[in-house]
């Protein structure tokens, strides 16, 4: 179901948008319009919708209009024309008190430079949203303390923001946004100010939080690596409008135009990369002789939902799903027969990555990588392949 629907959205900065609007319709570009009318086109011709529980990434170079678009969603910026619909309600022209209500209960925001209130403790920063809703002190502090624990900052409640590292400050930013229990999170380059290692761990954390929270997230970034890693879908923006919307695979394999192609250029160079270059070690696996009990335990240990089965010679025998293994264990069956799926997606180590992507896109299992002797030497999972490609692409370039 579409949580957010955006139609024909335009934002023109300046006092006289009418003329600029007309010029847009006639197909003039941003620079012409700025020169002729002194009005800046922030965004135009924006159409997309975001599904419930989806992580939707807005990506593009500096000045492409990402922040402007994001701020239209909670009306921090008033759009010039077009409509924004949240949960079926058109909020484009909603009164200030309705907007306030939406900001309090439905849509929260996380900022690039954290934007924490320096005069408030971590606890009172996180409780801010509840405070302005009039929630009594004890109650809002309790709720805030809970959320602080969720983001791993227990023990820091009474510190001031500037006593915390960047990564911790952004956890506070995230906690502050989550404390209102919103359905929708708007994140504007939320991790861009963090150094690479912290950034990566924050991405992982966001993904794992998202697993349990299932929010609808619009995430702005100018980093392709980040977009590929966390986005269910990605919208590429250029010069104020969206040039392509799609999954990571769509965008990498079918760039809509030169701009997108250039953006993913580094990744594209990985056509020379093979499956071997981006695969993970085949760990864990189970042997045919092991049986459902062992398989189930390994899966539990590693927190995975399926596991490859190999013969004594490490040839690929198939894959077993956790739910099937559980069933077999319950029925006291000792063998894999009946539950092993033999028809698993597999590629050879020499397969170019670009051909791996469609295979990955079509299956819900990891993809097995086998060598010339048909032995299992690696596995491929979606996120890691795409991210790996983006990284290795940089090295090659």
């Amino acid at each position: 179901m579409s949580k957010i629907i955006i139609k024909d959205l335009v934002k023109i900065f300046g006092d006289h948008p009418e003329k600029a609007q007309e010029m847009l319709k006639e197909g003039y570009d941003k620079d012409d319009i700025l020169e002729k009318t002194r009005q800046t086109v922030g965004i135009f011709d924006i159409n997309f919708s975001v599904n419930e529980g989806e992580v939707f990434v807005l990506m593009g170079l500096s000045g492409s209009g990402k922040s402007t678009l994001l701020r239209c969603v909670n009306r921090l910026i008033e759009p010039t024309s077009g409509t924004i619909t949240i949960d079926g309600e058109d909020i484009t022209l909603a009164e200030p008190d309705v907007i306030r209500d939406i900001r309090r209960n439905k849509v929260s925001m996380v900022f690039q430079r954290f934007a924490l209130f320096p005069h408030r403790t971590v606890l009172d920063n996180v409780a801010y949203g509840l405070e302005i809703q009039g929630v009594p002190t004890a109650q809002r502090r309790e709720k805030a303390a809970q959320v602080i624990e969720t983001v791993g900052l227990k023990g820091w409640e009474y510190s001031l923001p500037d006593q915390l590292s960047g990564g911790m400050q952004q956890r506070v930013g995230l906690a502050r946004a989550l404390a209102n229990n919103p359905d929708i999170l708007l994140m504007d380059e939320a991790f861009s100010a963090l150094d690479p290692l912290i950034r990566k761990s924050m991405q992982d954390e966001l993904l794992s939080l998202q697993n349990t929270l299932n929010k609808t997230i619009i995430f702005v970034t100018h980093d392709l690596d980040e977009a590929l890693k966390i986005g269910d879908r990605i919208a590429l923006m250029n010069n104020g409008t969206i040039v392509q919307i799609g999954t990571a695979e769509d965008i990498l394999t079918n760039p809509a135009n030169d701009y997108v192609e250039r953006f993913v250029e580094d990744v594209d160079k990985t056509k020379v990369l093979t499956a071997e270059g981006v695969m993970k070690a085949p760990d864990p696996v189970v042997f045919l002789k092991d049986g459902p009990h062992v398989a189930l335990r390994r899966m539990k240990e590693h927190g995975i939902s399926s596991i490859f089965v190999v013969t004594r010679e490490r040839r690929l025998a198939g894959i077993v799903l956790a739910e099937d293994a559980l069933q077999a264990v319950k029925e006291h069956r000792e063998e894999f027969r009946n539950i092993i799926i033999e028809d698993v997606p597999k590629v050879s180590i020499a397969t170019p990555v670009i051909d791996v992507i469609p295979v990955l896109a079509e299956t819900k299992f990891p993809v097995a990588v086998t060598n010339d002797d048909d032995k299992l030497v690696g596995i491929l999972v979606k996120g890691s392949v795409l991210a790996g490609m983006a990284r290795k692409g940089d090295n090659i370039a």
Partner: protein
Amino acid sequence: MPKLPIGLWVEQIVAWAQVNLEGLFDFITLIIEVLVTRIETVFLTVHPLIILALVFILLWSLANPKVAIGTAIGLYLIYNMELWEASIQTLALVLAATALALLLGVPLGILTARSNLAHKLIMPLLDFMQTMPAFVYLIPAVLFFGLGQVPGLFATVVFAMPPTIRLTGLGIRQVPAQLVEASDAFGSTEWQKLTKVQIPLALPTIMAGINQCIMLSLSMVVIAAMIGAGGLGDEVLAGISRLDIAKGFEGGLAIVIMAIILDRVTQSFGERHR
């Protein structure tokens, strides 16, 4: 070109106000007199040394020991010069003037920060108020309020209020835009944004404005005494008219002591909010 009757116009405006706003002025006079006498009686009914001790304890715990000790020495000196009563009168005037200046100045400052139009209108007016020689305010003050403490206070407020307005406005404008945006993004009302984010973050700057306001009020003490505001200003004026160096110097010294005390005390409170 004939001389423009600018002075005459102002005279006519003042005359008009004098006739038509008499009730208002009387009302203001009454309130201020009550306010000032209250402050005076509170301080004058208690023995100076007890006040000194109380102030010392208060500052020791709220500000810092250095300020507390300095203030105690200063107050003792004033007591010793037998200028206690005059100093209390001056203090009452300064405090009342500052209170009024804050009451008017802080909201006006907030207004200039929130509205560009207000900013454009008020700023030139402040320049005018600050550069017009303070003596000039004495004339309408006397016409409106007669002689005594109230016209002194009126002239003092006009002269001392500008920095409060300016620094309040500046402090609020200086609150980082991203924090204002964050406050909006969580659904704050304008009032909540002001009281929970903007004013707390502007507080050090606002305190600097209050400090300046007090200093300027003190600088008006002698001028205000010319129209009967009394206090330490009277001592200095008497010293001048009788060419009595001793009297004039002691009165002046007491003003300086009060200035230093009030400056340090407000500054140390400003720092606490940083």
